[in-house]
């Protein structure tokens, strides 16, 4: 009898502890507002995010205090979707622009035109910035920092290789790659540890390889999907683009197993002539040993197929969104306005290099006089969202990566790879 009482007490204790933990969590979440983001947990941004939130909290009452919840970038999309399905309260979130279609389709996000009014967007942001927060005609995101990806070159390496012409067309680009590979002194000596890669194109991870490849597809006039939503990576233009990309591998300008992190590390060490990256890469590629960044890093638009074509670029950026189930949309609006205000946006820019998106802040002298953001200006016009963005983003990108790797390793011809991409994506 004694034993059964002990067992009963232990089980009752466990059950009540679990209940109490759940209840405590619920109470904590229901107070104030929650701001989910990934940047706030990154070493470089911890301080500025704490400051952003603290300065807002000083202005509002206890019921509107903001607390942040951090997930890694790669988990943000799924975490927001899963938690929105439950009863947890989430009010504001930082999302990557490529997450927008999936979260909008899942019904997680609030229509911000209803919260901010239509004039708020047109009077504060450029058309291009507004467009990245729009999905199928509904404005779901406030642009926080938006700038397309650029082709970043190392002028020092190009000069040492004898490249003294501007890179406008892909013919120029190929010529420059050839000169780097064959003429650069580091590629002629026997030391393998200082070899220079002409173009560190993404070939390792689906999340970077597929969107970067898409820009080359667009450059050749191809696309992933046609207007009916059918995958057309087996089209003549797509195969032409794939054939060209494959030729870069055959000529030794690009290499297998290259990820964004690898490319940044190698670029920082002065071992890459060209690679693609976003504006926020500045911190990752800055190397004080090489002197001023303008001497070894120059962002430019991707080359075009022929003179006069519009340069293509992949969109990149962070949006601020409001969760549709949030009961505090007006307060969330106030918090977003605080984040994009001149004082906060300028400090975020100065400390982390995040380009403001509000027109009035963009024209600030501190932004205009900055080399890195200035160099980015010609790139700012373009920027398309990856065509695969949406619920099938990861699956479609994975197919593209696998077939791309098969082509680059010689297992498949460009035509076979294009056909396989098209048929596999259509059956996802």
């Amino acid at each position, binding site marked *: 009898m004694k034993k059964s009482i002990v*067992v009963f007490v232990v089980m009752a204790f466990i059950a009540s502890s679990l209940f109490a933990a759940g209840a405590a969590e619920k109470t904590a979440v229901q107070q104030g507002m929650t701001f989910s983001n990934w940047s706030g947990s990154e070493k470089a941004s911890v301080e500025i995010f704490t400051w952003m939130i603290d300065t807002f909290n000083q202005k509002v009452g206890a019921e509107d205090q903001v607390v942040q919840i951090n997930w890694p970038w790669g988990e943000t999309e*799924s975490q927001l*979707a899963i938690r929105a399905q439950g009863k947890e309260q989430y009010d504001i979130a930082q999302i990557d622009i490529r997450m927008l279609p*999936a*979260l909008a389709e899942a019904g997680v996000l609030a229509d911000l035109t209803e919260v901010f009014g239509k004039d708020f967007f047109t009077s504060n942001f450029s058309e291009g910035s507004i467009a990245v927060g729009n999905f199928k005609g509904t404005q779901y995101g406030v642009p926080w920092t938006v700038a397309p990806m650029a082709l970043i070159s190392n002028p020092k390496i190009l000069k040492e290789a004898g490249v003294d012409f501007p890179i406008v067309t892909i013919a120029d680009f190929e010529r420059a790659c050839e000169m780097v590979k064959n003429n650069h002194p580091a590629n002629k000596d026997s030391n393998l540890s200082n070899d220079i890669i002409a173009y560190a194109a993404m070939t390792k991870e689906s999340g970077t390889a597929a969107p970067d490849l898409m820009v080359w597809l667009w450059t050749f006039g191809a696309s992933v999907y046609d207007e009916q939503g059918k995958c057309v990576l087996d089209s003549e233009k797509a195969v032409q683009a794939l054939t060209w990309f494959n030729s870069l591998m055959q000529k030794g300008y690009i290499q297998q*197993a290259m990820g964004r992190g*690898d490319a940044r*590390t190698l670029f920082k060490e002065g071992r890459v002539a060209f690679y693609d990256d976003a504006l926020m890469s500045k911190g990752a590629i800055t190397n004080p040993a090489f002197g001023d960044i303008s001497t070894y890093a120059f962002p430019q638009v991707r080359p075009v197929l022929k003179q006069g074509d519009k340069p293509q670029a992949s969109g990149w950026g962070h949006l601020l969104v409001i969760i549709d189930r949030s009961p505090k949309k007006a307060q969330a609006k106030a918090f977003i306005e605080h984040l994009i205000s001149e004082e906060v946006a300028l400090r975020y820019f100065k400390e982390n290099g995040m380009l403001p998106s509000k027109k009035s802040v963009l024209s600030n002298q501190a932004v205009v006089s900055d080399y890195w953001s200035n160099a980015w200006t010609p790139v700012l016009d373009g920027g398309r969202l990856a065509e695969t963005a949406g619920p099938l983003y990861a699956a479609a990108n994975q197919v593209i990566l696998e077939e791309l790797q098969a082509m680059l*390793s010689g297992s498949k011809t460009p035509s076979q790879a294009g056909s396989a991409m098209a048929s596999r994506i259509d059956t996802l």
Partner: protein
Amino acid sequence: MGWLLLLPAMAIFALMIFYPFINSIFISFTNRNLLYAKSAFIGFDNYRKLFSDPNTLFLIWTTVKFVFLATLMPFAIGLIWALLMNQKFKGSEFVRGLTLVNWIIPGIAIGFLWSWIFNGDYGILNALLGKLGLIDKNVIWFGGKQTSMLAVVTARTWQMFPWYMAFIMGGLQGVSNDQCEAARIDGVNNLQMFRHVIIPAIKPVLILILLLGTIGNLQHFDLINVMTGGGPERATSTFATEVYKKAFKEYSVGRAASLGVIWAMMLSLFSIFYLKRIKED
């Protein structure tokens, strides 16, 4: 009273193992997606897609290849190492302890360590081979299908051979000294001693660790995920990496669950062998 005492354990088993397992089987018949709250019953659609996908067969092949190599390699090295460590030389206990460090280090850290060693552009392996004049240009280890499998298996071997060594050493302690001495008097050489005395004596241990090693490698995830993510061209994909990718990257939980059910069936085969073996012993 006995049942009442068993109740907490049974409740934990039901909650932590039985319910998720049954639920996974149920989910495998639905189109459950992490992005959406609602899902529908779709019968055998997930299984049909799985078996009509040529990649599934390739996945089974790469899983079998990884499990075979990642079990046999560390087993062989562990066996040799255990035989060496079993010789009572000065410092053998220290070396034995040092060997176990590999096994203690977390898999993620080992993954990053070996990723760096095998990195084609700044890895220490290429630098070493270059200095020795064995290569005249960098080898992109993670770019080739065979070389990436080699890299992953090497890392797994480095991580696991101490585990095999520890078990085999346990078995070696049980080999009768009298029997060995008798064999020596009969004039057997080292190889004969190994084949006809030591191996039969430690055979039950060897079979058990091979079974446990196979089960462990069938479930193995962290090293592969860190080093190759299953690539290139799926060359290092295993059931573990594929289920993770389907569920948490592509959000297709229904498809992941169907793959998981097949995987569980494969695992249960080896588990049955293992349980049978234990019962026999």
